């Protein structure tokens, strides 16, 4: 039932180039939901399990140990996020985009991935990066301004984040097309926000993904805001409703429910791996912090709305779940806190240790091999810097 609800009719794909005659046929989309079913939730805010015959089977294997691990991940990334915000306030970072409130969306989805899958994200997916194994100092390099990117994409299976809103969704789709050509069952995952869904790139990505049946997961974190703009300006219907129009089935999931996010992502990955193409996931969550440390949300955020989302905290509900089962032991709490503290310390120390690059490195990596044109500029600038170094009492220049 689940599979039939989610799979586009393969016959349709074979007939896309001959439109004639389809009018009298049965609606090729009849097995797709006209609108996605109600938001998937497996864990309610009070920590009790919700039964869901479609999605529960996808997390049947998740026992106390794994729930504790997800819990630890979320606590750690929140701690890192708060630490990075503090580092920005202390002048160590130029800017930081907090993920506060979105821990379940990011951890639940990222922990569903295999090492050979590939993530294309925006700037806010630092919990995803953490789960991919990005080094803690590498998380802050770009924000300190000491390098152009934080990590080697191929080393961790995660592209350098795209600040240009929406661009990465096309990259994910192309990467997925490449996976098909290579005959592997790796999947590309595109992370983007509610605001991004307005960009042409995102809509074009869905067209390409549908046309080429690309094994890509469109993972939209609807955190209700694009800086000061409410999601209602980007979409007058639930965002998940848009994808079926492109021929891509969608799932609307409680983005503050780590189990539901894990289940939904597993469903999408499974479809992609078995050749059924793209799935769109709308994770409904809330940006509890400012857009970035430069933002002043008091100008636009509705206090009551903010408070109501505070009551749906993604970490609190897992804590309650563990508590109800008698698994929130002092040992666990202690271990999780110690891990989070150690991670924060490592990131802070790493951040303090980041030095500005050597001046002439400004000319590095523009092309794959040196050009005489740019080498001349480099040498002239070298001569210029040398003049200041040689000058009596001269500084850096």
């Amino acid at each position: 039932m689940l599979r039939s609800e989610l799979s586009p009719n393969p016959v349709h794909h074979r007939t896309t180039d001959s439109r004639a005659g389809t009018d009298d046929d049965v609606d090729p989309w009849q097995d797709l939901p006209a609108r996605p079913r109600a938001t998937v939730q497996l864990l309610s805010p009070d920590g009790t399990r919700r039964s869901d015959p479609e999605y529960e089977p996808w997390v049947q294997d998740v026992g106390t140990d794994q729930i504790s691990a997800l819990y630890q991940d979320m606590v750690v990334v929140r701690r890192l996020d708060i630490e990075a915000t503090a580092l920005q306030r202390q002048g160590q970072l130029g800017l930081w985009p907090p993920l506060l409130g979105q821990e379940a969306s990011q951890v639940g989805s990222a922990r569903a991935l295999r090492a050979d899958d590939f993530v294309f994200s925006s700037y806010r997916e630092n919990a995803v990066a953490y789960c991919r194994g990005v080094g803690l100092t590498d998380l802050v390099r770009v924000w300190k301004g000491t390098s152009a990117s934080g990590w080697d994409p191929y080393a961790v299976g995660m592209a350098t984040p795209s600040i240009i809103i929406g661009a990465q969704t096309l990259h994910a789709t192309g990467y997925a097309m490449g996976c098909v050509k290579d005959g592997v069952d790796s999947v590309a995952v595109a992370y983007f926000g509610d605001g991004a869904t307005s960009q042409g790139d995102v809509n074009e990505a869905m067209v390409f993904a549908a046309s080429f049946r690309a094994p890509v997961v469109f993972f939209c974190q609807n955190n209700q805001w694009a800086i000061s703009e409410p999601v209602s300006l980007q979409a007058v219907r639930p965002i998940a409703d848009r994808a079926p129009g492109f021929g891509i089935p969608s799932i609307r999931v409680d983005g503050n429910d780590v189990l539901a996010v894990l289940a939904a992502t597993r469903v999408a990955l499974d479809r992609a791996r078995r050749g059924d193409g793209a799935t769109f996931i709308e994770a409904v969550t809330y940006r509890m912090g400012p857009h970035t440390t430069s933002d002043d949300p008091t100008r636009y955020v509705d206090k009551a709305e903010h408070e109501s989302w505070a009551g749906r905290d993604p970490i609190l509900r897992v804590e309650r779940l563990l508590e109800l089962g008698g698994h929130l032991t002092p040992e666990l709490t202690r271990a999780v806190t110690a891990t989070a503290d150690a991670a924060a310390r490592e990131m802070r120390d790493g951040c303090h240790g980041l030095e500005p690059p050597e001046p002439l490195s400004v000319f590095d990596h523009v092309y794959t091999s040196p050009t005489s044109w740019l080498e001349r500029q480099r040498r002239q600038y070298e001569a210029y810097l040398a003049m200041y170094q040689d000058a009596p009492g001269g500084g850096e220049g």
Partner: protein
Amino acid sequence: MAVQTLAAAIGTGLRRALQDDPRVVLLGEDIGRLGGVFRVTDGLQRDFGADRVMDTPLAEAGIMGTAVGLAYRGYRPVVEIQFDGFIYPAFDQIVAQVAKLHYRTGGAVRMPITVRVPYGGGIGAVEHHSESPEAYFTHTAGLRVVTCSSPQDAHTMIRQAVACDDPVLFFEPKRRYWVKGDVDEVIDETTMAMDRARVVVEGDDVTVVTYGPLVATARDAALAASDDGISLEVIDLRSLAPVDYETVEASVRRTGRLVVTHEAQQHGGVGAEVAASITERCFHHLEAAPARVTGFDVPYPPAALEDHFLPDLDRLLDAVDRVMGRQNSLSGWRG
């Protein structure tokens, strides 16, 4: 006359434009309730309503394309692009449509669209937030491209841009947004036209042509050079397309030396165009080859390196020494 920051002066200019012409509408991301990320449009939505100061969906191509439609319908759209590096999704609409519609329709259709773009570096930002993309637009026939360097010009020129029947790219030097100055909100026949260059410092030895964020740097250079007995004439180009070559030419004919400086990369930049045009016009008056002081031909670097990309006072003075034939960083250079 009141003291305003450059950002506030654009805001008061937009306020006047909204008052003066009911067909003026503002479109952009976060320009309403938030007042824009630089607060340039602060209070305008409150005072003129959400149908004249419109927060748009997050899509630059969409904003620009709908501005074209609004212009077809007789409106005068003023578009805010949040940062320089985010203009590229709108590039197709600007270059293929906005710039050409008047020409393509034999003058029947006008595109009085103003595109406001905070630009330039020096604020320690992350990538895409410090670029100087003006040359892409100066290379496109049919667009007027202007930039301001003082609160007074910011105020006057934004009003002139909105009132202009051609499309105008209006580049705002974001690192000078907080510079303060007197602003006279009266525009009359004595007000300098938007497409004229302004001599901001008079001098005899070297003509320094610049615009936007580096005008302040060039003024500082003029002061420093005068301590050395060198007299710089500083010209704020203001309009990058078309360029007021008469003003530049008249100056270079007197000084015989030209230095052009901008933050944007060198190759194919405005400096290249000015140096070539002035060389053609004033070849026999030149005492030295024109010098360009620009960003290097590399992508805008991470913040920790931006001081090694941006032209500054010392690099400018080094070029002045070069055109003066004094000891400089390239003395004896055998590249």
